[in-house]
């Protein structure tokens, strides 16, 4: 069953074409890793999935709801699609506990006690229960990103989008975040993950999508992708990031 269906999506800023005829299917329970050089349109594509960015052509359907349809209430859709950003984007003026409860209360209208209980359970799950009263600025990057994942999970998402969740982290903090993501994948969460962490891809991805210059150059099952990438550009890209 399809959870995210991106069909022939194109997008341009003025005369600059950011996405050209992109199509990706993500089935329920699948983990898709999206990689490609910087500026290839990965963030733009993932932002189109929950309507953070509009697109001019094609169609995106998430859980049977068309994102581009003007009649679609985007906030309802977004409330159910979790998103994790490169720079965490926790709300710095709120405590960790408030970060975890605010959308539950304001968007899902959950009572405070219930929202807090849920938030604390998820905070415990990412190993940060003791930090609930702190502000984001008091936490390390890795800890902030784990809170951000917990914040998204608190909304009971039907799928999760990750945009380079570890690329702003110091190397020693990457694994603590990837561990949480691996666990999530193994529990069957549907995930679309922009990342260059090929170890993560090897471990849990079902398919790997390679983008270049706004187009999807390769979309292959993990083993095929790592075994024999068909396109030359994907080969070069892999050689480059795997040599690091």
């Amino acid at each position, binding site marked *: 069953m399809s959870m995210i269906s991106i069909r022939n999506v194109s997008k341009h800023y003025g005369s600059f074409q950011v996405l050209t005829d992109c199509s990706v299917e993500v089935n329920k329970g699948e983990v898709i890793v999206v990689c490609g050089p910087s500026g290839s349109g990965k963030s733009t594509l993932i932002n189109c999935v929950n309507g953070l960015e509009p697109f001019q052509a094609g169609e995106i359907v998430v859980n049977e709801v068309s994102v581009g349809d003007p009649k679609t209430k985007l906030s309802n859709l*977004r409330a159910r699609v*979790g998103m994790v*950003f490169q720079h965490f984007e926790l709300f710095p003026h709120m405590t960790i506990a408030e970060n975890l409860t605010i959308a539950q209360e304001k968007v899902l209208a959950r009572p405070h006690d219930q929202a807090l209980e849920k938030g604390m359970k998820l905070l415990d799950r990412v190993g940060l229960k003791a930090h609930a009263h702190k502000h984001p600025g008091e936490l390390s990057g890795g800890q902030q990103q784990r809170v951000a994942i917990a914040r998204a999970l608190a909304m009971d998402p039907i799928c999760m989008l990750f945009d380079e969740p570890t690329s702003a982290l110091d190397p020693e903090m990457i694994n603590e975040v990837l561990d949480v993501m691996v666990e999530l994948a193994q529990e069957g969460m549907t995930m679309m993950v922009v990342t260059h962490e090929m170890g993560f891809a090897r471990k849990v991805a079902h398919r790997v999508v390679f983008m270049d210059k706004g187009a999807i150059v390769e979309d292959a099952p993990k083993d095929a992708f790592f075994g024999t990438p068909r396109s030359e550009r994907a080969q070069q890209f892999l050689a480059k990031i795997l040599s690091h």
Partner: protein
Amino acid sequence: MYEFDWSSIPGALPFLWTGMKVTLEITATAIVFGIVWGTLLAAMRLSPFRVLSWCSAAYVNLFRSIPLLMVLLWFFLIVPQVLEHVFGLAPGSDVRMTSAMAGFALFEAAYYSEIIRAGIQSVPKGQVAAAYALGIGYGQAMWLVVLPQAFRNMVPLLLTQAIILFQDTSLVYVSALADFFGAAYKVGDRDGRIVELLLFAGAVYFVICYSASLLVKYFRRKVSA
């Protein structure tokens, strides 16, 4: 050599204090309404709705292109008429205070809205994206996420603008309203001691504004810390 004579000041202090209260009242009203209305103007300006954005820009540009003194004069001339016609207020009622407050509030809102707009724009775009991604709408994203962060960054500028406003309230002398400056002038005129009274008034303005600017410095350090 001019002989200073400060003797008329002590007896005039209660009257001067009444004037100071007028000054403070106008300042406080203009700050509160100016910030509220200015915040709304800024939110309109930055909203995705073209019409709102255009109206706000027109308002701000209009008020920022007219001398404050003229705005005040219009208000002193027009507001009483409007009140008489629309609300059936008895002609000749003294609404100078209301006019002054309205004039300052509407004028200051244009300046506050620009400060607030800059403050809002200083909040990283990713913060709004994160709020949207959680299903939070434009209004609540503004209110819960952007404005609290923006105001923290804006406190020094808002205070500086308030200091300027405090000084500018002396312009109500055009309506002969006895604010602090007006009261000082009246006493000086009555006793033939204008120089002393204006020196005294200047000293009071200086002490208040300079202290406030020290406060601004303190907040600046706190924000950048």
